[in-house]
């Protein structure tokens, strides 16, 4: 077996010139797929990261009274439930959020409306926010209440810099305007709609909203792995159901919206996954993934057809060599094995080089190409750059499928070659 593999490897090296064009084609295809998968992976991860920060984690708990925004009346008890999750999680957080569109920031006469003013416990969310790419300033110090993090989009609109003092203004539950002056601790890189959120200390936001210091609108859980999201959701839903009135399980944003418009008494709790919160964006990501899968299939077909055609020619050109090997005692099966192994080596070699080229080009594209200012891309960017993720798992799948495709493509020519009668083959010129 090893001997046959060595023969195959020697044949592959010696006949490499015959494979050159096919090799270049497969390397290009692998590199292209690597680039696509790396960026789609990067986009997906970035969106999830931004969205989880915006929507209070990967799984969130809200509590509603009829016609009112979320307010969790017993945050300590709910927090205890969230902290009792029996798998490791990245963090359990509590926030107060001002959801209404009239929350605004003012600086030197400029103003920027915010989609959300988010009150966070800096210490609890430190590991989440420290992953933020800050264009200037620093992460707020825990215990200092009057600090705010704003996005580059907001900072640009306000003409404000880190260290400036802005005024946050909103309408209290009573309907009156209230304001607070806050120190801009840092400015995070964000120009998409996620940039219409500003983050401040929860007690400071509660003060502006004229709420108790302990006021909480959402409790959330950041999971370690996307795959844990459903488990955490089920855990929280079941645990909360024991002592709290619950909405039904929601499978879309529309269901949640419809449920909130129904009549009910008292307080009802809702558990929401990030997938549900970002179902529009998820659809976009799924579409991108689908496109890459289709491209992947097309590329595999090209490999199969390319390898098949190339090997038909190669086998024809090497008929005398194959005849000699057969005359020296190589069986039909071994002949097939040697040719298939050559194809496998071609696939493996192409994948190795293609992956290296793909990763290099991905890093180069990410570093060089600046897509800042292209609206549709802002959502996916990190610090103005295209983010990418090199997934070892995906690369193994690509390698496996490429090698298998090459072997499949070489299948028929290999069988044809094994059918040569040694004497006839050796007679051919």
């Amino acid at each position: 077996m090893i001997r046959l593999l060595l023969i195959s490897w020697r044949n592959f090296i010696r006949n490499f010139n015959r494979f050159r064009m096919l090799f270049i084609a497969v390397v290009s295809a692998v590199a292209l797929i690597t680039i696509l998968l790396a960026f789609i992976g990067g986009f997906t991860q970035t969106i999830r990261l931004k969205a989880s920060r915006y929507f209070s984690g990967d799984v969130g708990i809200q509590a509603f009274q009829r016609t009112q925004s979320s307010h969790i009346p017993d945050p300590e008890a709910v927090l205890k439930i969230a902290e009792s999750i029996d798998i490791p999680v990245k963090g359990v957080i509590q926030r107060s959020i001002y959801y209404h569109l009239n929350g605004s920031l003012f600086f030197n006469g400029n103003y920027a409306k915010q989609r959300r003013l988010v009150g966070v416990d800096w210490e609890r969310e430190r590991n989440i926010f420290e992953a933020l790419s800050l264009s200037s300033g620093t992460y707020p110090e825990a215990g200092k209440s009057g600090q705010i993090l704003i996005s580059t989009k907001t900072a640009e609109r306000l003409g404000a810099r880190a260290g400036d003092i802005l005024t946050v203004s909103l309408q209290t539950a009573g309907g009156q305007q209230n304001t607070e002056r806050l120190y801009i601790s840092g400015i995070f890189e964000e120009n998409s709609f996620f940039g219409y959120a500003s983050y401040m200390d929860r007690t400071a936001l509660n003060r502006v909203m004229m709420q108790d210091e302990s006021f909480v609108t959402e409790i959330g859980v950041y999971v370690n792995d996307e795959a844990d999201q459903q488990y955490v959701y089920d855990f929280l839903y079941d645990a909360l159901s024991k002592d709290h009135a619950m909405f039904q399980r929601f499978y879309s944003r529309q269901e949640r919206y419809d449920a909130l418009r129904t009549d009910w008494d008292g307080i009802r709790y809702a558990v929401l996954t990030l997938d549900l919160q970002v179902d529009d964006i998820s659809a976009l990501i799924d579409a991108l993934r689908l496109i890459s899968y289709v491209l992947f299939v097309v590329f595999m077909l090209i490999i199969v057809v390319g390898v098949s055609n190339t090997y038909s020619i190669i086998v024809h050109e090497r008929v005398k060599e194959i005849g000699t090997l057969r005359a020296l005692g190589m069986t039909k099966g071994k002949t097939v094995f040697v040719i298939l192994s050559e194809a496998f080596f071609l696939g493996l070699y192409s994948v190795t080089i293609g992956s290296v080229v793909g990763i290099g080009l991905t890093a180069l594209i990410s570093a060089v190409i600046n897509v800042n200012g292209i609206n549709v891309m802002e959502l996916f960017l990190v610090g103005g750059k295209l983010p990418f993720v090199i997934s070892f798992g995906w690369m193994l799948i690509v390698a496996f499928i490429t090698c298998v495709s090459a072997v499949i493509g070489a299948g028929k020519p290999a069988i044809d070659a094994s059918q040569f009668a040694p004497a006839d083959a050796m007679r051919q010129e």
Partner: protein
Amino acid sequence: MKKIVLFLICLSGFSLYAEDALLAKIDALLTYPESDFSAEYTIIEDKPGQGQKKTVAIIFRRDEVENATIIITAPDSNKGKGYLQQGAVLKVYDPVSGRFNSTSSRDRFENSNMRLSDFTQSTLRLDYKIISSEASKLGTMDTMTYELEAITDDAPYAKKKIWVGPNDVLLQVEDYSNSGQLMRTMVIPKYKKVGNRLVPTNLILIEALRGKMVDGEFVPEKTVVVVNKPAFKAVPDLYFTEAFLERFSK
């Protein structure tokens, strides 16, 4: 001792009554329950760096039943848009979609510095109480300044400071947030006698937070309102209906 306490109680009671009466008097100056009211408002917004924007609106008020209709007649892009107040309900009419949507008296009028509540009757007495007063000057005019604090959630601002001139005429109002941040100043430099009533015919609204830094100095956004053709004549009931706004826009 008892007499002194009794005197102080009487004094504070009288003072409360006097303050209440003052706010009622100011409300009466800006509220017209005895007759319908109509006027044409020319609203000129001056946003530093963005130039001026002029909006003309006709307003009909029936304060007796808290009804009001505002119809925009200029610029052309907003012509036919209207607002309808029927008691506590306030709606905005969009002539393009032909739909009415709920709005609030606290909302800005056409994104200007005017609130919708600025068009309708004054409710200072119901919404505020006086917490302090002092003699002051506004320009060269002797005035009294009163600090007001909201007593209901209906009040659009938590605190106000008002300048009251001779004959208890309201000359200036400063609106403050709960935390004491000045939000807006409204100056009423001109009143006109219409029949036996005084009608404010010129208002200047100055934003405290919105504006632009020009040569290192803050230049606020400003709105000047000129009230033309004020009249206390009966207005047809139809004018306070959705049908009127729909018909007018066509």
